[in-house]
């Protein structure tokens, strides 16, 4: 049984288009000129308990809007959402007990309160059983290294400290579903790593279901087995990451180190492209549906004085970039 079901979900924002200046303001007031902005456009997907799903797309694709409907903040304009069998918007309070939300850009902690005071308050709001609370606090303090932060008010924390604190606050009531909207935005590698570890651990130990939006594909590669890509409010891919790599990672690059400087007038196999031609270095990109690495390497070795070469694995980043840019959109069968 899926824990989240999204069925033909849409969200349309009605905007009152204002013309500039005072006249425009008056006109907008008395003769409003509405335009509809479709932020989420007939989305359908479902998520099983214990899954970690990456929810990605370009800026403005509709990720946050979807999350707001899943959490019950916004009402859908069309279609339906079910989380744990409930309608999150009309049963907002009941839904709230079972979910946790991180909005990466804002904090849920009280600005002036020491972290421990914020956590105490949150535990009371969610009615976390005191003994359990103590246990979790110890556990979180260790994995997120919160010990030194507990007495510090949020306003004095760095971005990374704030996000660690935020995650503790979000998971202290052991929600069944967690929505993370850009939890690693602006963080350094170490903090990112720690946060990913924490999310993985929670998921492993408690079967917590996680929906994660991010622009950092490292998050996706490390945490998610499955990714949903949306564009202009529509799903353009839903499936395992490995499939994207196989299906869409058709370009690979080989970097050759050459002994002699002159490598002019190279003849390359079909489906191959010279990306860089520098003294002692050649970078070749090829379409692996049209040729193979050995053909390319063989051809180059015949024509140039190759000292060394390396084949780069298709990286998610460049694949996603291609998908975003629309190059592969026609190919993507949903």
């Amino acid at each position, binding site marked *: 049984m899926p824990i989240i079901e999204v069925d033909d979900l849409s969200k349309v924002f009605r905007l009152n288009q204002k013309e500039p200046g005072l006249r425009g303001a008056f006109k907008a007031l008395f003769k409003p000129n509405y335009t509809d902005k479709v932020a989420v456009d007939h989305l359908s997907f479902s998520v099983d308990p214990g899954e970690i799903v990456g929810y990605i797309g370009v800026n403005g694709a509709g990720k946050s809007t979807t999350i707001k409907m899943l959490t019950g903040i*916004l009402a859908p304009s069309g279609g339906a959402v079910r989380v744990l069998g409930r309608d999150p*918007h009309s049963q907002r*309070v009941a839904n709230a*007990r079972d979910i946790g939300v991180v909005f990466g850009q*804002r904090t849920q902690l*009280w600005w*002036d309160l020491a972290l421990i005071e914020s956590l105490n308050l949150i535990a*009371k709001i*969610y009615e976390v059983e005191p003994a359990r609370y103590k246990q979790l606090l110890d556990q979180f303090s260790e994995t997120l290294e919160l010990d030194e932060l507990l007495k510090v008010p949020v306003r004095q924390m760095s971005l990374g400290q704030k996000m660690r604190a935020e995650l503790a606050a979000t998971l202290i009531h052991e929600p069944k579903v967690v929505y993370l909207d850009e939890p690693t935005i602006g963080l350094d590698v170490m903090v990112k790593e720690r946060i990913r570890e924490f999310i993985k651990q929670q998921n492993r130990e408690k079967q917590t279901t996680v929906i994660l939006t991010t622009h950092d594909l490292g998050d996706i590669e490390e945490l998610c087995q499955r990714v949903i890509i949306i564009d202009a409010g529509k799903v353009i891919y839903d499936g395992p990451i490995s499939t994207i790599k196989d299906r869409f990672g058709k370009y690979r690059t080989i970097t050759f180190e050459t002994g002699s400087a002159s490598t002019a007038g190279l003849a390359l196999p079909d489906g191959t492209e010279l990306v860089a031609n520098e003294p002692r270095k050649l970078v070749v990109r090829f379409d692996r549906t049209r040729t193979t690495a050995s053909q390319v390497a063989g051809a180059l070795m015949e024509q140039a004085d190759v000292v060394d070469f390396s084949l780069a694995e298709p990286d998610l980043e460049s694949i996603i970039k291609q998908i975003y840019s629309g190059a592969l959109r026609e190919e993507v069968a949903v």
Partner: protein
Amino acid sequence: MRKLKRYASLYWLFLLQRFKVLMEYRVNFLIGASSTIFIQAASLMTVWVVMGQVPSLNGWTIDEIFMIYGLLTLAKSINHMFADNLWTLGHEYIRPGGFDRFLVRPINPLFHLLADRFCHDGIGNFLVGLVLVMRGFENLSIPWSLGNIAYLVLAVLAGGSIFIALNLITCVTSFWIMNSVPVTLAVFQTHEFTKYPLNIYGKMIGVAMTWLIPYGLASYYPASYLLGRDVGYMAWAMVPVAAVLLAAGYRFWLFGLKHYGGTGS
């Protein structure tokens, strides 16, 4: 019942945390709590100077006017202490996006908003009002009977509720408009009229402050009742009016919430 207990204990916790923060900024706390006393003192001086010129205002002596003033101030302080955060709904919660947080927590969002910031500045108002009313009881020989004390408490709570309900109604407009503060201010400031006996004004203002923006029910009528001036049933009108306004305010709040669910801004 369990729910009530839960909310009461939550409120208490919010309050404790708030005081902890206030103690951290001790100077701010003292300035805030006492600033209202100075503001009130200046305002009271005006009354005193004006009344120094005339022995009575439409049959009201200075002590009696201070009684009206005191009752109003007490009612206002209830709103000031417990519901001041309503003012900030638009610019500190909805606009910056923090309001979303209230909607993903398993408690009533209006409760959350009110509990989020107890306003200590209101304490000064409360003390000024209390002193004025106590002084009125003494100087005007109003008996400290159980009935009078119960009436006083009722009048202050109902009056406070009228203040809260009217602020709620005007602040809920921030679900639609960019800045609701001028709207709230415009309604709120009319309470200045009700620091004085309503019968000194023309009919229009008297009726408006009784039925339209009924701050008068929190001051003029209860004061009249305590002073033994017969105002009939109007002495009790603040109770049903407060109840109706609170219910209407809450309804309007729910309506605003519904709108927010549609637009998210």
